[in-house]
């Protein structure tokens, strides 16, 4: 094993790229928990459907310029719409029930959506090629780093910033934040909270699907990617704080590099490290590094 600096730097960059992917996915999970109070196991399934739908759209839009980008947009929007349907038809009816039932409903969706994907796309591994502009690599300290990863490294903070701006400065953003704090009062002020919840769930689903769509060119798309990612997303939102947006960003920035660098030092223990961080955070600050204690 070599430990020269350029190699470590490259591994760090890889870890940060993964952090950006997981941030996109986990931010959707976090906002859904923050506003709706539902821990959504099916979020991993929406991520998986985002990846599959991107594969599908890329093959549909073949020969058109910018096919990958159109595919990403179409796939993530389609999954967001599916999220809206799920919220309206199913999840909505369980808000007044105990947490266990909501948890189990979202797990039922994991089973149903997972099989739906298997039914439509089969069990083979699928792949999406990178968009033409982002093929190839840049040289960093004598090592090659894919251009696509550079793009993701820039995109992650941009999305984070835009979303933060949306939450802070727009009317919808204010309503979402208000709903997270006190949904009854918001309703009494004349806001249609039901519709707001649907929109929030769609935004959350869109983030999950966007993560899946953008990760499609760098992984193989296959059944089982849903149950793997969801635990990682849970870890990130728990570390950062359930419902805390910047907490999710911080959580991703911790988990991605720790995993990537940990694998260099202790290849076998890297995965365990991350779970241990989750346990330690839950023990010492159950509401996460940047979250606030739950008052409900």
């Amino acid at each position: 094993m070599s430990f020269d600096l350029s190699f470590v730097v490259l591994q760090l960059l890889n870890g940060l790229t993964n952090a950006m992917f997981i941030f996109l996915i986990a931010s959707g999970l976090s906002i859904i928990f923050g506003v709706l109070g539902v821990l959504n196991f099916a979020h991993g399934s929406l991520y998986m459907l985002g990846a599959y739908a991107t594969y599908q759209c890329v093959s549909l839009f073949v020969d058109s310029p910018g096919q990958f980008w159109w595919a990403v947009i179409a796939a993530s929007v389609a999954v967001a719409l599916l999220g809206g349907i799920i919220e309206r038809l199913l999840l909505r009816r369980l808000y007044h029930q105990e947490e266990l039932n909501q948890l189990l409903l979202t797990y039922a969706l994991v089973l149903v959506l997972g099989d739906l994907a298997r039914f439509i796309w089969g069990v083979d591994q699928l792949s999406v090629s990178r968009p033409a502009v982002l093929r190839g690599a840049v040289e960093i300290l004598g090592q090659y780093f894919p251009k696509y990863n550079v793009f993701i490294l820039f995109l992650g903070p941009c999305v984070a910033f835009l979303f933060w701006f949306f939450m802070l400065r727009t009317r919808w953003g204010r309503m979402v934040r208000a709903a997270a704090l006190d949904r009854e009062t918001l309703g009494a002020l004349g806001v249609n909270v039901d519709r707001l919840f649907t929109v929030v769930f769609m935004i959350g689903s869109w983030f999950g699907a966007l993560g899946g769509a953008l990760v499609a060119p760098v992984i193989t798309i296959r059944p089982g990617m849903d149950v793997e990612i969801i635990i990682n997303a849970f870890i990130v939102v728990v570390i950062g704080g359930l419902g805390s947006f910047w907490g999710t960003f911080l959580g991703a920035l911790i988990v991605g590099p720790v995993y990537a660098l940990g694998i260099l030092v202790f290849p076998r223990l890297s995965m365990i490290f991350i779970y241990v961080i989750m346990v330690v955070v839950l023990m010492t600050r159950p509401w996460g590094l940047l979250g606030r204690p739950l008052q409900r």
Partner: protein
Amino acid sequence: MSRQNWILIAILVLMGLIPVTGSRYYVFLLTDILIFGLFALSLNLLLGYTGLVSFGHAAYFGIGCYACGLLIKKAGLSFGIAFAATGFFGAAAALIIGFFCVRLTRIYFALLTLAFSQIVWAIVFKWNSLTGGDTGIYDINFPKFLDSRTKYFYFTLAVVSISVLILRKIVNSPFGRILMTIRDNPERTEFIGINVKLFQLLAFIISGFFSAISGGLFAVFNHSIFPDFCYWPVSAEVLIMTILGGMYSFFGPLVGAAVLLYLRMEVTSYTVYWPFILGTILILLLFFFPGGIVGFIENQIKRWRSSK
């Protein structure tokens, strides 16, 4: 003896007669049901009786599997000694993990149990030299005195019956009443001078003990063990069994395990899309039968009696 006890004895005798029919299929299925029924019952000591949602019970089942399998295959112990030790491995793990988990409540409790179970899974998955990693451990044979599926079925029936008897004694004892009081109102229980965390921890340990017993039974029944047995979807599946049967009745989880495993056996012979069907059943259950199967039947009986 009460009427319920007579019914239970009759069911036990009927189950004991199943091998006489000569159906290997039913012997296999019933052994499976008994094992997972015990697993679900032990989860329900926490869920239905103490009001704690554990999303990491795969850990104790998996520890049971690996404790039993490794003691036989790696330590070369006889089945009897290995199996007898299995429960204590589960209880010890539950003591350590539960010690931390009972400090948290509700969703945080569920997340912490999940995190710990994933640690157990990661250790099993990565510790190749001991556990065989992803390939698991094979050729865990039936011991000499239980060298057929039928004999192993009787052994399972005996172990599960004794365990069920003990669990039933526990929930009907003053200790069990305290657990239910904690479930209904932890704050008030604290006010009357009961150490809530201690009782939650004790329930956690007992639950871990019996989950590991079911894991040990399963390791030998299945002849092989894999890290997947500790992976989080197993925790979800046993939760489904429990609420399918009904978490507010003692035998509910056993009924849930029976129905789920029977359906899985039937459905998978027609289609590979069993998860889709299970997911659909679960959704219907949550919307239309929130009390589970046993809860639904009890309600129907009540209505029928009151209409008479």
